[in-house]
């Protein structure tokens, strides 16, 4: 079993980051996430939003690994998440379903408001990787945790990409609204 973890700070408010997180895919930094479906979603009695999602990925294993474990093209993972708007936390737990009898990847992610700066958001990620029943277990586990470090960096780039996109959309909307006002108001004053 191998444990991997990572921390990062976004220079954006928690509201912005969480809104962007729901719109994270598709993005050019995570091309292996091919499909995403919401299996269930509800607001619980404490006002927290609970979601259960199904991710379809290509995982991107090298071909020698795929041949060794007889891997099919599409892999599936289950994600359970909770958004707590009062405490400003968003927690996600993702684990693979496909090949779970051979390799288990269990990832916990938390986005929370920075304790001292409300304009920043902390991201904490932790994953455990266990490979069993195969030769080269340690090597495979190491490879996967290396891939996670690489993917975590891409994931952060993806979030910045989406936040940037949403900010641009809002600016374009403001500019359009301003143009409308500039056109309409001069006439309104003469009515």
């Amino acid at each position: 079993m191998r444990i991997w973890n990572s921390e990062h700070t976004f220079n954006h408010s928690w509201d912005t980051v969480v809104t962007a997180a729901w719109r994270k895919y598709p993005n050019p930094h995570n091309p292996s996430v091919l499909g995403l479906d919401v299996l269930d979603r509800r607001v619980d009695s404490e006002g927290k939003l609970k979601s259960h999602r199904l991710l379809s990925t290509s995982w991107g294993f090298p071909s020698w690994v795929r041949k060794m474990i007889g891997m099919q093209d599409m892999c599936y993972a289950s994600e359970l998440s909770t958004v707590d708007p009062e405490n400003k936390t968003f927690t996600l737990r993702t684990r693979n379903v496909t090949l779970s009898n051979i390799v288990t990847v269990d990832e916990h992610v938390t986005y929370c408001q920075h304790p001292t700066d409300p304009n920043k958001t902390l991201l904490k990620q932790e994953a455990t990787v266990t490979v069993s029943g195969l030769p080269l277990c340690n090597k495979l586990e190491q490879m996967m945790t290396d891939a996670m470090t690489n993917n975590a960096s891409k994931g952060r780039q993806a979030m910045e990409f989406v936040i940037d996109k949403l900010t641009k959309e809002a600016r374009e909307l403001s500019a359009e609204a301003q143009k409308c006002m500039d056109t309409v108001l001069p006439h309104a004053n003469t009515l």
Partner: protein
Amino acid sequence: MKYLSKRAASMDSVGTDCRELKRTYDECFNKWFSEKFLKGVTEDPCTALFKVYQDCVKKAIREKNLNLEEIETDVLGTEREKQPPPTT
């Protein structure tokens, strides 16, 4: 924060027939989430859209005979939600 209603690139669904239903539901959810839920309005106006989309996804999972026995679609609100993943 309102956003332009341009047709953004959308993700695939596990069921190709469900893609448009997913896109419509996601648009409703994203709008409600940022404009209402984060401001304390917990009533979800997208439930009807979600039901149609959810039925499509469940059907696609069944039709593909996906061996997703651990992905039971009714986990939220049950004891299974809090269970750790199975160890082998």
